[in-house]
């Protein structure tokens, strides 16, 4: 048993060493291969299944990428419940000090464009981007991301062009600025699965790592895959 433990430990060490060698990983940029630089990582769940990372594509990059990374192969319902609980605490805290909160919203199931626009208008939300799901001509799910224009929240002509004949099922997520005075009631709407407010917190944490000529790109993705596959 002891020999087995030593062998397993050494094997783990070798595999970890290989990853450590590649910790600053190669990245395709233009037609060059450059070194990705990890500036910081931190657990958002104590068990490490959800982390946030701060990286640059290469040493010279002016873009600092901040991400919520979900180890989604083994994320279970309890993990998500813990994440949602922590998020609710953050939401309450941010609502006291901010007038608007940048959020990533995932719906419990896709909603119609009319429902979406009603919800957005009622809560005075400024939509940055939206995500739709459709069934294409090969019976495959098509995942669409788009942006509002000056005339409408979801520009219909552009959507028709992008759908390319696919049948729209609905809006499953969006990113936008939600007024603090509405956000907690909005989050408790039965059609809303998660209003993730991590962007403000990660931005504040990462700003310290940014040089004057650099900019942050903070990614907080929707969790539609979790709602559809795990819940």
């Amino acid at each position, binding site marked *: 048993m002891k020999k087995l433990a030593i062998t397993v430990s050494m094997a783990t060490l070798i595999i970890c060493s290989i990853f450590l060698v590649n910790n600053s990983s190669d990245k*395709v940029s233009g037609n060059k291969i450059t070194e990705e630089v990890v500036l910081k990582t931190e657990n958002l769940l104590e068990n490490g299944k959800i982390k946030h990372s701060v990286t640059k594509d290469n040493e010279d990059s002016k*873009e600092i990428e901040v991400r919520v990374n979900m180890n989604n192969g083994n994320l279970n319902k309890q993990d998500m419940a813990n994440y949602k609980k922590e998020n609710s605490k953050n939401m309450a805290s941010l609502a006291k000090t901010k007038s608007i909160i940048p959020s990533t919203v995932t719906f419990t199931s896709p909603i119609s464009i009319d429902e979406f626009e009603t919800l957005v208008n009622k809560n005075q939300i400024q939509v940055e981007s939206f995500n739709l799901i459709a069934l294409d001509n090969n019976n495959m799910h098509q995942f669409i991301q788009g942006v509002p224009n000056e005339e409408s929240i979801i520009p219909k002509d552009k959507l028709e062009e992008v759908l390319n004949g696919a049948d729209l099922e609905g809006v499953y997520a969006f990113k936008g600025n939600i007024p603090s005075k509405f956000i907690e009631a909005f989050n408790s709407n039965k059609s809303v699965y998660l209003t993730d407010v991590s962007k403000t917190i990660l931005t504040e944490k990462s700003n310290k790592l940014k040089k004057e000529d650099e900019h942050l790109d903070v990614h907080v993705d929707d969790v539609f895959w979790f709602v559809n596959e795990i819940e």
Partner: protein
Amino acid sequence: MNKKLLFLTVLLVFALLPNFGLARDTDYTPGASFAWSPYSWNVNSYVDSSDSSEIVASFEKVKFNQTATDLHNGAYYLTFEINNTTDNVPHNGWYSSNIPYAKYDKDDDNGNGYSEEIEAIKSYVGAKINANQEYYFRTSWFDSTDEWGEFDMIIQRSVVNPLNGEFEGYHYDFLETRYWFNF
């Protein structure tokens, strides 16, 4: 050589072999280069004739054989990347793909306000891609006064690094370059 040392040596060798372990498959020459690369595809780039304010790029009919899908499924996040090497047009924010649970990303490493990399990424590692299925990724940019531009079309297998939790395009294979012309 005792048995333990032999075992560890074999493990190290396998760990460094492409598709078995953690060695990286990286190729920036045209065409399919690895067992996980697609066996056929169409890639396009053009100024949209029905809407001259738009430059379109797409992967169409990207097909993988059974060996390739086996290598993608389970541990990797299939990623289609468009490298905008001329970096002279602003992205318009629209994307579509039938990659399972596709999410999208764009990078502006030089801070010029344009995006030199655009990606469609499978966002749930448990979702499987199917052999011989046609996969696509379509996206577009605002037009500019420039007369031409260049897009490099790349397939990647991305992973979450178990040590630092960072999501990274670990293996990549450049397929083709496509140009758009505005005259």
